[in-house]
């Protein structure tokens, strides 16, 4: 269980307030327009910013002030996920050892994970030689290898064309199930939410104004979601 207890974070005029519980393995779509606080919410969960008030707990343990690297969270951004001067395998290997001194067993794990995301044999390439979709998969491979129970994805599909989007969403869903990941997916596309998630938060000006299961969403609250359909 991930609990957000009376969390409040102010940045300038903007204030994010949260009070919610998310069971392990649940997949939450965070919907909202730009500026509604989606990225700030993920930054807060990832530990890049510390709330002014309230607590974040994971399985009962307070993780509010924990540095990003010690949290049960891994994060992917829309882009900028890969280091251009490292190979794909090295980028993925960072999940295991940041100094990249991988032993044979670890190297095999990297290769296997690359296979799993459909990048088998591409470990030696540089990010610049990959397509946008392939870059996304490489970043996903690293996220899997980090082996942290909560995945934070900040609009990971925004730069992809519709076909690739479907592919990635399918892969991501399968991986979440395989690894039992708790997922926060920031997006402004309702279809991503429907494809991948089982719960929806609608953010407006830093507040969750709607919190309900994905199933039957369109029928239940058509007026609130009209912007996303």
């Amino acid at each position, binding site marked *: 269980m991930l609990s957000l207890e009376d969390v409040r974070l102010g940045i300038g005029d903007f204030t994010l307030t949260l009070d919610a519980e998310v069971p392990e393995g649940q997949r939450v779509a965070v919907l909202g327009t730009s500026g509604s606080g989606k990225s700030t919410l993920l930054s807060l969960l990832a*530990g*890049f910013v510390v709330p002014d008030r309230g607590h974040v707990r994971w399985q009962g343990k307070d993780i509010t002030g924990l*540095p990003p*690297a010690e*949290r049960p969270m891994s994060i992917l*951004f829309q882009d900028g996920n890969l280091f251009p*001067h490292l190979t794909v395998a090295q980028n993925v290997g960072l999940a295991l050892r*940041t100094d990249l001194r991988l032993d044979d067993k670890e190297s095999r794990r990297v290769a296997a994970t690359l296979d799993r995301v459909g990048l088998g044999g591409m470990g030696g390439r540089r990010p610049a030689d990959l397509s946008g979709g392939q870059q996304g998969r490489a970043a996903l491979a690293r996220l899997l290898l*980090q082996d942290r129970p909560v995945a934070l994805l900040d609009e990971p599909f925004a730069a992809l064309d519709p076909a690739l989007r479907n592919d990635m969403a399918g892969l991501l869903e399968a991986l979440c199930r395989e690894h039992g990941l708790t997922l926060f997916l920031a997006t402004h596309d309702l279809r991503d939410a429907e494809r991948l998630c089982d719960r929806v938060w609608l953010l407006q000006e830093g507040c969750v104004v709607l919190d309900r299961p994905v199933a039957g969403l369109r029928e239940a609250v058509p007026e609130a979601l009209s912007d996303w359909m």
Partner: protein
Amino acid sequence: MERTGAVLAALVALAVLGPLVAVAFAAEGPGRLGPADFAAIRFTLLQAALSALFSVLAAIPVARALARRRFAGRRLLVAVMGAPFILPVIVAVLGLLAIFGRAGWLNAAFEALGMGTVSIYGLGGIVLAHVFLNLPLAVRLLLQAWLSVPSERMRLAASLGFSDGDMRRHFERPILCAVLPGALTIIFLICATSFAVALILGGGPRATTVELAIYQAFRFDFDLGRAALLGLVQVLICLAAGLLALGLVRGGEMGFGLDRPARPWPGDGPVARGLDVLSIVGASVFLLLPLLAILLEGLAALPGLPSQVWEAALRSIVVALGSTALTVAMALPIALFAAGGRGRGGVEAVTALSISVSPLVVGTGLFLILFPIVDPVPLALPVTGLVNALVALPFILRALIPAARAAEAGQGRLADALGMTGWTRLRLAILPRLRRPLGFGAGLAAAFSMGDLGVIALFSSPGEATLPMEMYRLMGSYRTDDAEGAAVLLMLLALALFWAFDRGGRVDAVA
């Protein structure tokens, strides 16, 4: 806009090389180089290489510390630390001597402690002065690169648990690979044409640079052929350095992001903090004490300066502003052209010519070109503005081209997709991303023009002296106190101009 850039780059090359050709044509016969000239070439290479190397090495920890620390007065410190670069050389040297000289604070302290004295004169002193003058530039170039690191990538590193060593390897090393060749080259070029530093601190004729040999050829021998030949040697040395640097720059770009480094910095710890404190304090003391000495010596004379000095100051401000406008007008199209396609990096090398050509040769050449057509005297200020703009151009391009490339790769594509063209595309998609390097470059150009003695000496007429020239006149008439006051005025004005433009460039930046 891009085509304009190509044409402008060609014009810059012409404006720089034209005078050299003019001098060569005015010569009565081909010039010849003697053994003393070759010794000068060797010495020039040695001191410029050492100066560039030490400036950049010292800049690495300072830039790193300034990139990852936030403290009260940081911005002010960054701005003030830039001052030595924009000081007229003679002022900077006098400031250094107040600290490191025979009667300086350092030796006074040593004496008080019963230790021996140190001498600043010789190769060591030349390198020290060049590091003093160019460390600020090296720091700024590196800091600029640090600030262009995408914040997503910083956050990723934080999330992955990067250590200090990992940060070096995955952030600093690529940054250095991308920035060092250019930074080394530009400082090498500045030091290769250095004249007064080498002569004042060199200690004697051993420390003869090519620029001094050119000066000598013009002034005492009036051997235009030899001057042109030496000028050409200087250009070739600098061109070789430029090409070498160009070969070293490859695929080192760090991408683009939110222009805002993440907090907290990954891998931070007590050791890193200690190193940063040491670097910032060390650099501040080294760069600011001489400025303080200048201030202390000159401040008292400031209110009583003759009215001619104030008039000259006003004139200098006007020239600096004109020169800055000209620099920006040239730099923007050239940067966009250079960023607009592969294999156009050479454009930057071409414009870098303008610091590799001896100001004496350019001044004399322009004079030879203009004199048969018009009376050069009324043109003194415009020509000074033009030459100052040319000199500032490589610096602003150095900051602008990488940013333009990033903007093209990012927003540029989007703009193309939206069918934006021409001015709209530039204004909406590209310029916002260039504001910071543009502000920095414009500030540099303004300050540079402010402090530069330039070619005006050759064209000067009584009513049109600039502030640096007025300062030299005061020094030349025993009025050392007033000259020190003028030096303070010059330093403050140059800093204020730089500060105004640089701040203007970051109005929307979040610190």
